[in-house]
């Protein structure tokens, strides 16, 4: 590596995981030693329907480069219907972010069951790779910078 080489980009990635499926899926990825980059930090929520769009916007505003939400597969929600509401909320939020010019790849929803350690790990690897390809998130931190 040359001396001028820029510091390697290490994205900040927040993952919201529901307690019953995805958090357990992440635990399974851990106990199965299925690695994914350390850039991903998980926040435990009871259900994907607990994830307020404000949390996601806040993460971006505070400098997150990507936010992913994981919940139980539709139909398998521990609370029966939570992920269905979450699905609508996130669809609309992501669409809005896309609309204001925030790269769509920075947000993602994935349904990961407690048995899907492999899927959790692959998803996170993919997502981090995607964020790498998008680079640092400047837009959401920057929406109202008067130039």
């Amino acid at each position, binding site marked *: 590596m040359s001396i001028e080489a820029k510091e390697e980009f290490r994205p900040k990635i927040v993952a919201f995981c529901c307690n019953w499926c995805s958090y357990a899926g992440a635990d399974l990825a851990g106990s199965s030693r299925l690695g994914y980059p350390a850039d991903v930090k998980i926040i435990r929520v009871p259900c994907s329907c607990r994830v307020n769009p404000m949390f996601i*916007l*806040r993460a971006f505003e505070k400098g997150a480069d990507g936010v992913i939400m994981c919940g139980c597969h539709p139909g398998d929600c521990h609370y029966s219907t939570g992920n269905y509401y979450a699905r609508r909320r996130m669809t609309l939020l992501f669409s809005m972010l896309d609309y204001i010019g925030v790269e769509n790849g920075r947000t993602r929803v994935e349904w990961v069951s407690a048995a899907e350690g492999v899927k959790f790990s692959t998803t996170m690897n993919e997502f981090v790779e995607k964020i790498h390809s998008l680079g640092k998130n400047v837009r959401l931190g920057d929406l109202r910078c008067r130039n």
Partner: protein
Amino acid sequence: MQELIKRAKELLENGTVARVLGWKAGDLPYNPEPAYFDSTESLADFVYNGFCGANLSKYMIEASKLEGKTLVCLKPCDTYSFNQLLKEHRIDRDKAYVIGVGCKGKLDIERIRKMGIKGIEQISGAEMEDEADTLTVSTIYGEKSCKYADAMLERCHVCKGKEHQVYDELIGESKETKDADRFAEVARIETMTPEEKFAFFQKELSKCIRCNACRNVCPACSCRKCVFDSNKFDSAQKANVDSFEEKMFHIIRAFHVAGRCTDCGECSRVCPQGIPLHLFNRKFIKDIDEFYGEYQAGMDINAQSPLTDFTFDDVEPGIVGERG
């Protein structure tokens, strides 16, 4: 207007209503403002003309707490907001006597100014009774005129229709003024590159001075205490700094009213900076229509709002990336 005043007087006199919620003339010919009239005498100040754009439904929240019934004048589009507030138990139907007033499109003074008409002293042609489709504006520079339709608010060009959704009686004729596609501008933005989109919104939002006029006027923003003023989210407005709500205010606000916004257009109408705020709300409406089927807030009081509803095979959030 005279018929309206006459009827209001009758209702006040026979005790059906305790007050009238309408508009009174402002200090300029084009800025009438919402007002209560609690006596027949006070109705002398009552006006109803092309500049009475203000949506009075939201005032019914406070009026519902007052003694007696309130006569409220609602234009066809205002009735959607009224219904939505009814649905959310924010207003009391029994406390309102709704007169559906006619509407032939409301005027936007900014549009008139943009046509280069400045120094306005008098405007004629804006009265409900006026048949002509021309506005005559006398200015300090002499008399100018323009087409009524050209001076209309953006929202009137995409009018939801001349039918009142709720009323006790109707007074006055309404006109269908729709001559544009409601989602055309949203669709245009959707086709931009991310860079263009961002530049567009950054430019618009940078004008915001956080005066909260949009929030104050919005019939969906009727919370007793706004989350931006609440410490529950650590987002309370302190100084006007480069902080969370500063950047995200309009997006969060749009999300809060998603599925509840009737697209009444008041936010854009009152914005002193002329930010096209309705473009946020309309984006949600367009998405909701496309993803979950057409839905008009305030139309059917018993319909389930799209954000408190679901189907087992709703689209996945990934659709956003897939449709490009």
